[in-house]
């Protein structure tokens, strides 16, 4: 793309394109912007890297793992084999001879479904309600906020327990949504207050004055500025889903239809007496370790993701890819120096 065919004297308003960009080039640019650059940013931060690896491990466990590892069966091995002793039962067995490793693996797919459903529901609901309410203001704002306030005042856990008892949900997707049924309200309020300050920003006003529709302004101007916050909350609500579901399975409130780490802990506690006998302790510790590791992965990932939407970091990583001319970094320092001045 050369500038030869243009002269500065032309009225720039009339310019039309003289060159064609192939479809392939555009697709490549899109892939670079949406996948490669974020991946590079994540990889450059050790917390995000470790967090991503841990999450990837669980995804593998939930997809490929269930094919490789046979479902646990009662009496397939000796009772209460300690972990790391028998290679065919790497994490040992429970009091009925079930393979604990297989139980952990087979509890993963429903758990992942629950997490995705719950976290997506929370953040999408909160973002839509929060941004719309904060940006529109007036009556829309009042109505939406009244609704969220009502949800906020309902105590969450009892509500979930009541609904779980009435509906007896079996689908992991449904359980995920029930668990977060009123968790989005608080996030929606927080997002709304962020939007209230952002809507007065000059660039948002400029978009408004250009007559762009509200939808475009919300998606292009408001939400990108909130993305670090939204993403951190997405990961946090994923952790909430894990903890709540495990807790409710452990308490026996959710029906024991799926394999679940909470179910394992419940059985270890009620039938195995894992709290009192050292022999059965691993029955309780194995699912706990699975939960703790996943939660740890989420936290690390969340800490690393706030860089993902920082334009300064993005610009640097795009330069590495050669998507831009490499002298960018040298010329962008005016801002940096004023930053130091300030």
């Amino acid at each position: 793309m050369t500038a030869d065919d243009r002269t500065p004297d032309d009225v720039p308003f009339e310019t039309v394109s003289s060159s064609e960009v192939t479809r392939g080039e555009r697709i490549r640019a899109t892939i670079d912007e949406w996948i490669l650059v974020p991946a590079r940013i994540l990889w450059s931060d050790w917390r995000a890297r470790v967090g991503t690896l841990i999450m990837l491990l669980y995804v593998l466990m939930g997809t490929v793992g269930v094919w490789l590892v046979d479902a646990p069966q009662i009496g397939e091995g000796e009772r209460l084999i300690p972990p790391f002793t028998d290679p065919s039962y790497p994490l040992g067995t429970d009091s009925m001879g079930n393979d604990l490793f297989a139980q952990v693996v087979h509890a993963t797919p429903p758990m992942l479904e629950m997490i995705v459903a719950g976290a997506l529901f929370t953040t999408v609901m909160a973002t839509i309600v929060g941004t719309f309410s904060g940006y529109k203001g007036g009556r829309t704002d009042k109505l939406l906020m009244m609704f969220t306030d009502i949800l906020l005042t309902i105590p969450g856990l009892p509500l979930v327990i009541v609904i779980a008892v009435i509906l007896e949900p079996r689908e992991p997707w449904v359980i995920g949504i029930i668990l977060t049924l009123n968790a989005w309200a608080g996030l929606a309020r927080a997002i709304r207050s962020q939007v209230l300050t952002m809507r007065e920003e000059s660039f948002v006003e400029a978009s408004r004055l250009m007559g762009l529709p509200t939808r475009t302004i919300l998606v292009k101007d408001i939400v990108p500025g909130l993305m670090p916050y939204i993403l951190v909350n997405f990961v946090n609500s994923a952790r909430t889903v894990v903890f709540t579901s495990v807790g409710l399975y452990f308490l026996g409130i959710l029906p024991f239809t799926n394999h679940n780490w909470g179910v394992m802990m419940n059985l270890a506690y009620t039938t195995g007496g894992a709290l009192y006998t050292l022999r059965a302790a691993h029955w309780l510790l194995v699912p706990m370790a699975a939960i703790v590791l996943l939660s740890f992965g989420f936290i690390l990932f969340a800490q690393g993701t706030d860089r993902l939407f920082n334009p300064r970091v993005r610009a640097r990583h795009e330069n590495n890819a050669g998507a831009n001319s490499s002298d960018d970094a040298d010329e962008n320092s005016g801002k940096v120096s004023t930053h130091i001045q300030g």
Partner: protein
Amino acid sequence: MSDNSFTGRSEATKADVSAIQVDDPILEMRDASVTFDMDRGESRVLDQVNLDVQRNEILGVVGESGSGKSMFASALLDAVVDPGTLSGDITYHPDPDRSVDVLDLSPEQLRELRWEEISMVFQGAQSSFNPTTTIRDHFEETIEAHNYDMAQGMAHARELLEDLYLEPDRVLDAYPHELSGGMQQRALIALSLVLEPNVLVMDEPTAALDLLMQRSILSLLNDLQEKYDLTVVFITHDLPLVAGLADRLAVMYAFEFAEVGPADEIIRNPTHPYTRSLLKAVPNLDTPLQEMQPIEGMAPDPVDVPEGCSYHPRCPLADDVCRASNPAYHAVDDSDDHVAACFHWEQASDVLSLTTDGETEHAEIVGKQSADPVVSLTDVDVHFEQEADGGLLSIFDDPDLVHAVDDVSLDVYENDVVALVGESGCGKTTLGKTSIAAQRPTGGSVTYREQDVWDAKDGVGDVETPFEAIRRSLQMVHQDPGGSLNPNRKVQASLEAPLKHWNTGMDAEDRKERVFSMLEYVGMSPPEDYAGRYPHQLSGGEQQRVALIRALLMNPDLILADEAVSALDVSLRVEVMDLMLELQDVFDTSYLFISHNLSNARYFAGNAGGRIGVMYLGEIVEIGPAEEIIANPKHPYTKVLKWSTADLEVDQDVEEPPISSIDIPDPVDPPSGCRFHTRCPEAREACARQQPSLDEHASDDEHRVACFREYDQSHEYWESEPIDDGESTDLFADGSDAAEIESDD
């Protein structure tokens, strides 16, 4: 004196420091450097600076943003923030025989040095105060922390506040938000002086204030300096502001001092090419418009300062010597105290003449104004409801109305330029937003090409021009270049947004090509590179250009430029205003230019043959052709504004302003009659009762004034008694109090 050693920096500075030294220094800075380690390399934001501060002088440090002037202030107090590292020597002499090595002090000693010996005033008074405690607490806390005697300290505090024309009782018991910006800044100065320091370092202390308040604070500062034998280091980007105040001036460029000397020498006979260009680039009221011209190029990056003289890429005098080695300080005209770091200082005055020179061609664009207005405002009111703060029962009270704009009529024609000038809070931005249909007026009508804008929006009556078309035609460029672009989107995406929505027929390549050509047109080339950048990778001037292009891509009829150049560096303002005027010619658009600065308004409107409108408390008090308003201001308020616009005059003392009260009255309860009468030196009884108006019959090109003094002799103004409040010397008396006294009569 100068041995002309062009070889290297360290040798040069040692060989020729004589002029930077003074007889009785209170602070000595030697080879001071501040560096930051960054990903891109070492960022040197203060580069081997040598400077002495004379006891009891006012030293003005002038530089553009990013020139390292704030770092200089931090270094004086050894207050460089982590991870910056400070090297060199800084010596403080409490009296001529003692010396203290500032960089050698323990944290406890350093704490004592700061505030007790050297204190500092920062830019934003609002953020320097803790909003949850009263001003008194701030004083008491400071006195207590430094183990001073409380009673004595508070007595001194009261004295200081009185010196600054503040009422001690009222101010001490107030919370910071209850004081106006100017009062806060004065209280902050008092707070910094309460421990009787010897040196006061002020970093842009008045930058956030109105010109009028700036000038008034400077005159107070002059008095304080004399009364308390202070040494003041005044850091600013505004050369004219400090010119009349300072004894010596030091001009900073690229993290070191380019020229140091007595203030009058620097203004009358500047020798460094940068100083000369800076003086020419600053818009002011006296220089003919043709003589102002911008400095080409950009200030260097602290990571990558050019070899040799750091100014050579922008300097018309630069030659091989400048590119190869760093110039030493040369004494100018063999005087001891005026030095310039330039090899060619002798030629500078010939090449860069400060007076008229023919080489610059300046496009004089005269507005081709149409017969019918594009946007017409008729009797427009904008009143905001202010929330009452009286608790639960107050919901039954009528809310307070803030009269932001009151009964204003204004026509803007095609290819027209109207500059609105006024103090902050006078309603100029609200009026601007009302005229581009971004703010719904509470009274009166706004029409676009004879279509009522808000009728079109609501679909009332016959709508000839749909609101979408009106919306497109009225655009805005914001004040803060950093905030006017979405930080998360690249330039390309930001600029394509309007095209995507409005020119649906364009395909991706056409859009891209148009954005590129626009970028190139405004001098951002190569455009492919700039289009792929995020806003933070652009300088302030470039950001403002992008914002301007974005508005122009809509092909608007009127652009509201709300303080569009105020946030830019002085050297860039003229350049951006020139660009805006050039684009006006290409795109056939009109501007409504809002500024608190009369000289910017004069430059912008004057070059386009436009008008200047002066606003006061929601009303236009004077309007007319730009040069006419500047040369022959008729309204007393315009005269005040002209007074407050600092001229490049050194010997002119900071005199008393032609106004009887500095603080602006409360717009919730504007004064009766002529709104300016509470502050007007010419006010008479009639002014409090009747309201003067702009001449309705005069044409829009004429000079119109809303003041009884322009009425003929038969008007009762000339018969009535002058208003004498007995306190006309008390400039800082609260204006709203005065207003109450008047209305009680």
